[in-house]
């Protein structure tokens, strides 16, 4: 997995320089089409938006809109503070990060315009050979960082942040949650919502979270979990297996991903096991809170 800093302004100006040198007129390529340059970004966004839109619609349909309540509750538990360095991992389209910033604005309205910059400069984009992994690590350039392994989701998130007027308050970074590019002890709060289930090594993700959190920092995870009530669990299973893959096929044209979704939910550790895993990565005061009878759960731990 390659690790790149996506400081958006630098990247787009770099791209526009390449474009003007590789095409003869003020047009560029959008797939096989040739379009005016200023149209390309819009077209690109349309493509990404249509894919992400169906994912959002699927979330709404699968959970009957309840995922919004879960995420709102999650942010209330986080209780944002303007002095914090915050990172949301696997947060591609920005659902959690936007909620974080909006909650911040609600309680600290004056802070929105006076966010202090980080102390260190932006990482230079030239390449060099580093002697160790530690030398390649960077510091966050914003109080709110969104990290995701998938560039498409990040692109949608960036566009959404522009629409929501939150663009210049977020640093977007494309990275693997098991190997974050940040130096140790950079963040006060680390959140991961509905993402850790998709990671290959959950323990490595939690360990990385421990590494990048400051002392006193908090780890929070919102994820699907096990329904504790037997009868409810039966109906939940039937509902999942019967409805979710066909709806995924019809709405998102993707049976396989939603089949994977319902299977991965059942493979993921139960509430207590996941809490033990978090404890084994040296987090203290680990506990969890069930949402919707255990359909999802919020796990929390502190680095002390």
């Amino acid at each position: 997995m390659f690790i790149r800093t996506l400081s958006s302004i630098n990247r787009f100006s770099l791209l526009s320089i390449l474009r003007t040198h590789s095409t003869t007129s003020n047009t560029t390529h959008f797939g096989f089409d040739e379009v005016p340059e200023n149209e390309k970004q819009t077209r690109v966004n349309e493509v990404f938006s249509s894919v992400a839109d169906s994912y959002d619609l699927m979330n709404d349909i699968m959970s009957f809109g309840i995922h919004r309540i879960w995420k709102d509750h999650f942010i209330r538990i986080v209780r944002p503070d303007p002095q914090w360095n915050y990172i949301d991992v696997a947060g591609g389209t920005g659902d959690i990060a936007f909620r974080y910033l909006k909650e911040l604005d609600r309680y600290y309205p004056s802070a929105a315009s006076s966010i202090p910059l980080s102390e260190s400069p932006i990482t230079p984009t030239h390449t060099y050979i580093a002697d160790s992994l530690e030398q390649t690590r960077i510091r966050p350039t914003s109080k709110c960082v969104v990290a995701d392994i998938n560039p498409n989701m990040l692109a949608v998130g960036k566009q959404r942040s522009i629409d929501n007027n939150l663009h210049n308050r977020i640093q977007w970074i494309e990275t693997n949650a098991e190997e974050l590019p940040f130096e140790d002890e950079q963040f006060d709060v680390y959140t991961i919502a509905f993402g850790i289930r998709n990671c290959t090594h959950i323990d490595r993700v939690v360990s990385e979270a421990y590494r990048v959190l400051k002392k006193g920092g908090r780890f929070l995870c919102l994820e699907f979990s096990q329904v504790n009530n037997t009868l409810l669990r039966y109906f939940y299973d039937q509902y999942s297996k019967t409805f979710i893959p066909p709806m995924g096929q019809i709405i998102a044209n993707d049976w396989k991903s939603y089949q994977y979704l319902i299977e991965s939910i059942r493979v993921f550790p139960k509430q207590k096991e996941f809490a033990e895993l978090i404890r084994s990565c040296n987090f203290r005061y680990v506990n969890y809170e069930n949402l919707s009878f255990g359909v999802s759960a919020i796990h929390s731990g502190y680095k002390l």
Partner: protein
Amino acid sequence: MDRLYGTHKPTGLVQKSILAVGSGIMSIADPSRDDMISIFGETTGGLALKYMQEKMVIDPEGDRILKERPIINSKTVDLEYLKTLPIGTLGKTYSNFLGKYNLTPDARRPVSFIDDSELAYIMRRYREIHDLTHVTLGMPINMLGEVTVKWFEGIQYGLPMCVLGAFFGPLRLGPKHTAKYLHLTLPWIVRTARQSRSFMNVYFEKHWHKSLNEFRRELNILEPPPKI
């Protein structure tokens, strides 16, 4: 249920119903979703596929197709060889057809929701010979041509998707095409569909070299109406 073939996704009755209703609605709401049209065909075609299977088993060429299960894609069909055939042959006309409309024989969606291996193959074969049906009937890719082919397939195979397409497609025709459709094309295609051999029984790949006229005579296809 276990997976019976490579692209098989086993589904229960409730799931098939959801897919049938959902894909039916989506096909009309968003015609660009061709996957919805094919899923609608798969989930509603059970009875028709069994009927097609019966007709194939009793015909020697059809039975051979069921045993050998030939596949039409760019790997199994030598498109270069087809280009070299004389004009007026089935192969050359097919090759021209693909080139004219910029099509490839690989564009057909795989079958997923049919829970019988042979019926799934029949559905696949039906999809793969669609372009050849166009060529043999002499129908272009425009709306009128597609509706005509749907009528033909609906009468010969009985698939609900074809029948629905045949009934509702003409609603979108312009006045000139509608007139031609009602007076010339429709009577011709209904007569042809009922008289000619079922195309599922035709081993097209063995007839590339044949002249198209001779091929049509063998299949008992009447002369198509003149172009506008």
